[in-house]
C-alpha cells in the first residue's frame, strides 16, 4: 500500500512540475513582448511562484516524512 501511494505521489509530482514548468516557460519566453515594467513584474511573480511552490512541496514532504518515519 505504501509503495502504491509513494509511486502515485511521485508520478503526480512529476506531472505537477511539468505543469509548473510550462507556466514558467511561457512567462520567460514571452515577457520580452511586454513593456519593461510589466516584464519585471512578471519575472517577480514567477520568482514568488517558484519559491512558494517549492516551500509548499518541501514543507509538506518534511512533515509527511516525520509522520511516516515516526510511525
Amino acid at each position, binding site marked *: 500500500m*505504501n509503495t502504491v*501511494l509513494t509511486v502515485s*505521489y511521485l508520478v*503526480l*509530482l512529476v506531472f*505537477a512540475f511539468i*505543469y*509548473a514548468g*510550462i*507556466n514558467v516557460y*511561457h*512567462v*520567460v519566453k*514571452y*515577457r*520580452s*513582448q*511586454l*513593456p*519593461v515594467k*510589466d*516584464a*519585471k513584474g*512578471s*519575472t*517577480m*511573480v*514567477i*520568482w514568488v*511562484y517558484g519559491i*512558494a*511552490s517549492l516551500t*509548499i*512541496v518541501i*514543507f*509538506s*514532504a518534511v*512533515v*509527511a*516524512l*516525520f*509522520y*511516516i518515519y*515516526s*510511525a
Partner: protein
Amino acid sequence: MDPTPTPKRRYPEDTLFYRRHVINLFIPFLVAIAMLIGAGIGWYIVSVTITNNIFFGFAILFLGLAIFVILSYAIMEWMFWYFDFWAITKGKLEDSQLISFFRYSRSELPLRQVQDISYKTSGFFATIFRLGDITVQTASKKGFFQLMSIKNPKKAVQDISRAVKNATDDLYKSYDSIDVKPPVKLGEILVGRNVITREQLLAALTEQHTTRLPLGKILINHGWISKDDLRAALSAQYGVPEIDLEYAQIDEALLSCLTVPVVRKYKVLPISRNQNGVVRIATAYLSSDLTNEVKDACGSPVVFVIADEDQLTALIEKYYPLSS
C-alpha cells in the same frame, strides 16, 4: 533568471497600454480558492478517519501536492490574463495575446486604417466597475479589433481617437503641401513656354473679362493651345502630376470613396490607391474648397493629379450617373 529582461519590443514612452480589467481574474481565483477549501476539507476528513501515522503522513504529502497544483492553476490564469494586452504606439495598434499553451498571437494595424471606434458596456460587473468592450473598426482584412473589459472605456476611446487623429494628421501633412494658390499664373506659364504669345494672352484675358470662362478653355477654343498643353501647364502651375485618363485604369472599388454630389460639384474622380493607402484623385482644377472637401469626404489620405476636363467629365458620366 534575469530580473530585467531585454525587451524585444521597445515601446515609445507615450504608448497607450490596455489590458482586460483585473476583475476578469475574479472567477478563476474564486475557483482556485474553492479548490483550496475542498482540498482542506478533504484532508481534514481523511485525517480524522485514519489513525495510522503513515497514512496521515501521505495525506499531508498529497495535500502539499494539491496546493502546488492549485497555485499553478492560479498562475496559469494570471499568465493568460497578463499576456493579453493591446498597445497603441505612434502609428499602429498592436494586439498581443497568449491564446493557449504554445500558442501566441500578435497582430498590428496601422492607425490610419482605423475607420471607427466605439464601445459598449453590458453586464453586472462591467456596469459596477465601469468596464467596456471597445471595437476598433478598420479598413484592413482583419476587419476589426476588440479591446475587452477596458476600464473607463469612454476615456480610452478618446485617447485612441486622438492617437488615430495624430497618425492620420502626420500622413496628411505630406499631402497638405499642395499650394492651391498657384504662385505663377497659367497665362505666364504658357507664354514662358512659348505656347502662346503675350498678345494672345492679352486677347484671351480680355475675352475672359466678358465671358467669365476659364482662361484655358478660351485658349483651346481659339485653337492656340491643345488640351495636352493646358494639362501640362496646370500640372506645372499647381506642382502636382498630370494624368492621361485615356490610358488610366480606374479602380472601381474606390468609386464609393466619393459621393455623386461631391464628384459632380468638383469634377473629381478617384483613380487608384497606392500601397500606403493614399488615394489618387483626378481633377481638372484645384481649389482650397475642393481639396478640403474631397479629403473629408474620402476619409483617406489623397493626392491630386491634373486630368483633361472633357475626359474627366466623360468618366464621371460613366461611373457616377445621375440616376445612382
